[in-house]
């Protein structure tokens, strides 16, 4: 039954994918990309990957789409019709696809409980997490503790993206607090924005701190947090949003989150453990793990939220004044 839904979703994804490639309107393609992302997120839910689904929805359907839109606003929304169908890419794609399909022939079948992935390493995570880490969400325990170093790397990637976008596009502060005429007309939007803004932030906090028990964690929370501010910026104008959270503050927060994460690692080293060994952070290993995970998730949340918001600011502040 799940298989059925899974199949239908895959087919829908395929249709969406083909449409995206064919679309010559970039805006439409972006919309479809957003749908693609949502659909794949639904697929993740079907496949029991709830944390991933949450992240994919927030990042793929949310932030990526918004960034694409901002880029289209700064460039153009139309794609020149291709002059010819290039053969070489087609051949490359077919060869690659064939290689992959060839590779699938010896794969363990979908959902097979005897597949190697279910027999090695992972069972230990499932088995040991309650005892060693003491939280129910195994994804969080693997993410934050067993493979916490990957997560640090991931944070560094996001940090790099933030620094990179800032380097590339620079940052311009919006002068004036007047809202542009477009916004004045959208009274409803403003009301809704005002209504939702605190709710979203609250929800972000929930996702942040509930990550140990259910789907969620620093990344998702950070993105939702940023989404809240983006909504604010959409409803009240970039200038007002920038007054709410100024760029300098963002910059400090970006660095702070990173340093918090690394600091936890260094601290555990100073206390005689290995890098990122949370056990030594408190008297009892499990509460040490708890403390460590909360701290690093906080670091992740802060950095991700501020990087996302910073990237959005940077993109939008590139827009000519009148269009905001």
């Amino acid at each position, binding site marked *: 039954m799940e298989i059925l839904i899974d199949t239908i979703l895959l087919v829908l994804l395929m249709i969406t994918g083909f449409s995206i490639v064919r679309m010559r309107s970039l805006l439409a393609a972006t919309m479809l990309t957003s749908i693609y992302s949502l659909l794949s997120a639904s697929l993740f839910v079907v496949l029991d990957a709830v944390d991933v689904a949450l992240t994919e929805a927030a990042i793929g359907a949310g932030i990526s789409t918004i960034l694409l839109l901002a880029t289209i606003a700064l460039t153009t929304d139309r794609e020149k019709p291709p002059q010819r169908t290039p053969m070489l890419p087609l051949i490359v794609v077919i060869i690659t696809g064939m290689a992959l399909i060839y590779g699938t022939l010896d794969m363990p079948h979908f959902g097979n409980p005897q597949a190697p992935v279910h027999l090695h390493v992972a069972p230990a995570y499932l088995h040991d997490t309650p005892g060693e880490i003491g939280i129910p969400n195994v994804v969080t325990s693997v993410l934050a503790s067993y493979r916490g170093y990957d997560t640090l790397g991931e944070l560094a990637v996001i940090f790099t993206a933030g620094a990179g976008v800032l380097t590339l596009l620079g940052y311009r502060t919006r002068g004036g607090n007047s809202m542009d005429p477009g916004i004045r*007309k*959208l009274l*409803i*939007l403003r009301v*809704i924005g005002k*209504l*939702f803004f605190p709710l979203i932030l609250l929800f972000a906090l929930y996702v942040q701190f509930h990550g140990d028990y259910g789907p969620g964690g620093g990344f998702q929370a950070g993105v939702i947090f940023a989404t809240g501010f983006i909504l604010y910026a959409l409803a009240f104008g970039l200038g007002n949003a920038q007054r709410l959270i100024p760029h300098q503050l963002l910059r400090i927060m970006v660095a702070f989150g990173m340093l918090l994460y690394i600091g936890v690692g260094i601290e555990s080293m100073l206390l005689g453990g290995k890098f990122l060994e949370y056990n030594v952070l408190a008297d009892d290993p499990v509460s040490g793990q708890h403390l460590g995970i909360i701290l690093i998730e906080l670091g992740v949340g802060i950095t991700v939220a501020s990087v996302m918001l910073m990237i959005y600011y940077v993109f939008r502040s590139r827009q000519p004044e009148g269009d905001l």
Partner: protein
Amino acid sequence: METVIYILSWIFLLGGAIFLLVGAIGILRFPDFYTRLHAVSVCDTMGAGLVLAGLMLQGGFSLVTVKLLLIFYFMIFTGPTAVHALAQAALQGKLKPVVDEHEQQ
């Protein structure tokens, strides 16, 4: 009582599904953008509302219900807001509604 709630929930769910389907057909079949807005509104309010209500009945009174309520709350606000904003943007973008069948041809 249990059974009543159970049956009620399924009625809600089925009703919601029908509204969703109707709305979906509407968005496909209606002639122009403005009419399609109506179809979507059906989905957003009646369809979504009924389905969520059915689920609430299924879940009983717990954190689940709170979350479903929250979703419902969000939907009830965001749906119309989005549709409104969309309509306004379309108007601003000089999109003409199709007034008459003959005119269209």
